[in-house]
C-alpha cells in the first residue's frame, strides 16, 4: 500500500536526511518508527503525505507515485491520510470544533454528518468540554489531543502520528494508544513515531528503526541508545 523504493532525501544539497530507504507498509498494519532526534522520522512521514518529495528514488502511496502525481491529485491523497503533526498545526483563528470539523468540510461531507463525527472525535480524545476554545487557550497536551481528533475524524486508510504523546501525561498517553489500537482494529494502518520505548514493549506491531537517515534494526537502537530499559 505504501512503498519506499531507494529513497534519498537531501536538504540544502548536502545534508542527507534519508539514505537509501526501502520500506513497505501494508494495509491495517501497526508500525512504530523510532530513532534519535534528527534521524529523519518526520522527513520520512512528510513524504507519505507528499509534503516533501524524494531527491532520488520513488514512493508509492495508495496508487499514487511521487514521480507521476499531479498537483491537483495531492489534496485527494491527503484526504485519505490522517496526520498528527509533531507541531500540531492547528488553525489559530478557529476554535477547537472548527479545527476538527475542517478536515471533513474539505471533503465535502454533509453538514449533519460533520457535526456528529466531530463531536464523536472530540469525545474520543476527551476534549468535548473545550470545543469552543481557541488553540491559544489550550495547554500543550490539549492542543495535541485536538490534533489527534482532527486526524482520526477522516477515517483514513493510514494514520501518521508524529510523536502523538509528547506533551501528554501518562494516563493520557494510555488513552491515546488505546484509541489508536481501536482505530487500527477497524482496518486503518498506523505509523507512529515515538521516543517512548516503553510503549512499544507493551504492545504488538512492527518497529522501524532509523539512524542518520538509514534503516537499521530497531533492536540496535534499543540496545545502544536506551540500554537501560532493554
Amino acid at each position, binding site marked *: 500500500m505504501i512503498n519506499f523504493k531507494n529513497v534519498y532525501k*537531501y536538504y540544502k544539497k548536502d545534508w*542527507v536526511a534519508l539514505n537509501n530507504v526501502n520500506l513497505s507498509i501494508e494495509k491495517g498494519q501497526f508500525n512504530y518508527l523510532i530513532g534519535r532526534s534528527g534521524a529523519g522520522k518526520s522527513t520520512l512521514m512528510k513524504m507519505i503525505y507528499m509534503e516533501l*518529495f524524494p531527491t532520488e528514488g520513488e514512493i508509492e502511496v495508495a496508487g499514487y507515485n511521487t514521480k507521476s502525481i499531479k498537483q491537483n491529485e495531492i489534496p485527494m491523497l491527503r484526504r485519505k491520510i490522517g496526520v498528527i503533526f509533531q507541531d500540531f498545526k492547528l488553525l489559530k483563528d478557529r476554535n477547537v470544533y472548527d479545527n476538527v470539523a475542517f478536515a471533513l468540510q*474539505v*471533503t465535502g461531507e454533509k453538514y449533519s454528518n460533520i457535526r456528529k463525527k466531530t463531536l464523536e472525535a472530540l469525545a474520543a480524545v476527551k476534549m468535548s468540554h473545550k470545543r469552543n476554545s481557541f488553540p491559544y487557550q489550550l495547554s500543550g497536551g490539549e492542543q495535541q489531543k485536538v490534533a489527534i481528533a*482532527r486526524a482520526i475524524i477522516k477515517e483514513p486508510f493510514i494514520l501518521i502520528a508524529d510523536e502523538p504523546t509528547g506533551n501528554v501525561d501518562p494516563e493520557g498517553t494510555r488513552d491515546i494508544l488505546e484509541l489508536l489500537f481501536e482505530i487500527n482494529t477497524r482496518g486503518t494502518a498506523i505509523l507512529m513515531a515515538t521516543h517512548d520505548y516503553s510503549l512499544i514493549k507493551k504492545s504488538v506491531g512492527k518497529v522501524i528503526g532509523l539512524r542518520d537517515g538509514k534503516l537499521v534494526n530497531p533492536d540496535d537502537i534499543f540496545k545502544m541508545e536506551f540500554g537501560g530499559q532493554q
Partner: protein
Amino acid sequence: MIYIIQEAVKGFFKNKSMSFITIGIITISIFIFGLFIAGTANMLNVIKLAEDRIEMIVYLKDNLKAEEIKLLDEQIATILGVQQTEFVSKEQALENFKKEMSENSPLLSAFESNPLPASIKVTVSMAYKTPEYLREISEKIKLFSGVEDIDYGSEWIDDLDRIIKILFFIDIILGIIITLSSVFVVFNTIRLTVYARREQIDIMDLVGATETYIELPYIIEGIVHGLFGSLISTALLYSLFSFISTKIPNVIFLNSSLTVFMVFFGMILGFTGSFMSVKQCMNEIREVKRLEPVGKRKTLPRSVK
C-alpha cells in the same frame, strides 16, 4: 460550496482590523482615482465651454447687395466644417458694440458715422475647432468675393490650443501615475494581509483542502473588500461633489456609467489582487518545502553527512 462562502464571511469578520485596513486603502485608491476621472470630466467640460466660444466673423465689404450676401452666405455654408452661419448687419454691429462698451468708454463718443462693417458669424463644428482647420476654413472663405476680412482670434486660438494640449498631457501623465499607484497600493496591501495568514494556508493545504477551497474564500473576500471600498469611495465622491457644486457652478459629477466603471474597477482590483496573492503565497509555501517543484526533479550528486 456552502463552506467556502461561510469561510469568506467568517474571514471577513474574523480579521476585522485587516478588513478595515484593506477596505480603507481600496477606498482611498478608488477615491483618488475617481477624483482624477471627475477632474478630467470637468476639465473636458471647461474646454468644451471654451471651444464653444470660438467663432469666426467674416467682415463684408461695404455696399454689398442682399443677393450677393445671400450667395456668399450659401457658399460659406457649404464649406466642410462649417456648421451654421448668421448675418449681422452694420446697424446690429453698432448696437452690439455700444452694448459691450456701455459704461465707461470714451471711444464711443468719437464715432461720427457708423464705422462698423456688416459681417457673417460662422459657427464651426466642434471637430474642426483646431488652429489648422480654422486657418484652412478662413483661407477658403477669403477667396469668395465680397469678403473684406476674417477674424477668428487666431492668436487666442493658438493659446487655447496650447493650453488644451498641456492639460491633456498632464492629465494623461497623472492618469498613468494614479492608475499604477492604485494598483500597486491595493495589490500589495492585499498581499500583506494574505501573507499574514500564510501559516493558515499551509495548514489547509496539508489537511487536504483543494486549491479552490483554500483560495476561493480569499478571493471572495478580496472582491467584497473591493466592492465595499469602491462603494464607499463613490459615496464620498458624491458628497464631495455635491458640496463643491454648492460653491462652484458648472461642476459636473461622474455620470452613472463612470460610477459603474469605478465600482467595477474596485472589484477587479480586489479580485486580481487577492487571486494573485493567494496563488503566489501557495506557490511560495510549496517551493520552500520542495526546493524542487513536482515533476521537475533532477538527480543531485550524492554526498554524505
